[in-house]
């Protein structure tokens, strides 16, 4: 079983900047999801608090909308490519991502 994720979000690598950090508790998220900032901004919503950086969503996104940061966490380099197929939703073992159309 995994260690509880320690948020070590500092990265020395160049171009990739972490923008979609979210620590909304899921209890809150259910009802308040729409008020979340990132949710409005991106077609794909990632709950980093639950994400375990397994890379599955990135690996199986059919369009390449998703990318992976050096620490393994997913992000959305190409929001425009998302076709809302929800593959990421279904394959994420941690209920930590949704590409559903809103």
């Amino acid at each position, binding site marked *: 079983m995994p260690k509880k994720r320690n948020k*070590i979000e*500092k990265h020395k690598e160049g171009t990739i900047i972490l923008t979609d950090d979210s620590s909304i508790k899921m209890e809150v998220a259910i009802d308040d999801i729409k008020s979340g900032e990132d949710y409005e901004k991106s077609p794909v919503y990632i709950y980093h608090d639950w994400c375990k950086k397994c890379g599955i969503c990135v690996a199986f996104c059919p369009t390449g909308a998703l990318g992976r940061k050096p620490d393994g966490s997913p992000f959305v380099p190409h929001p425009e490519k998302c076709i809302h197929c929800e593959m990421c939703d279904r394959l994420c073992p941690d209920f930590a991502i949704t590409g559903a159309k809103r």
Partner: protein
Amino acid sequence: MMTKAIFKKEIRFSGSGGQGLITAGIILARAAVIEKHRVTQTQTYGPESRGGASRADVIISNAEFYFPEATRFDVLITLTQEAYDRYSFNLKDNGILIADNTSVKNITLLDSEVYELPFADIAQQKLGSLLPTNIITLGFLVRITGVVSEASLKKAIRNFIRPQYVEMNLKAMKIGFKLADGYESDL
């Protein structure tokens, strides 16, 4: 720090499962065995065989002792805030705290010798992986405390770690040594 008289050191590595605490403990214990000390190494972890809060204890002495778990620590290593919060109370007054301040942000101890360093970040930076954090910390500990000789530590790493990973871990050990040398508590 070592004397020829009777000595007994209780060392606790604490953090969470998967951080290699037990490996660090075993290597330290083996190094002490090489030096013909009496050693016990124990650990606790979460349900069934993995995960959750975790700790590894090593007790090293040149005399007989009995209880195998550390109760009053001479050295406490904390790699998570949770571990720090839980165990810092049992550090001896003149004990040594080594904390990874990548995670341990809130340190309240005043009397003790406190060493804070971002071991995990350093591991990631210098070795491209979080895995050797434990050995960096261990190298640091050994050079700071001298609880075992560095030769024994090296030997223990060589003996215990699988061949293909020995190099990387020796590198990590040396990074730990260097960090100890260059440590300034204000950093």
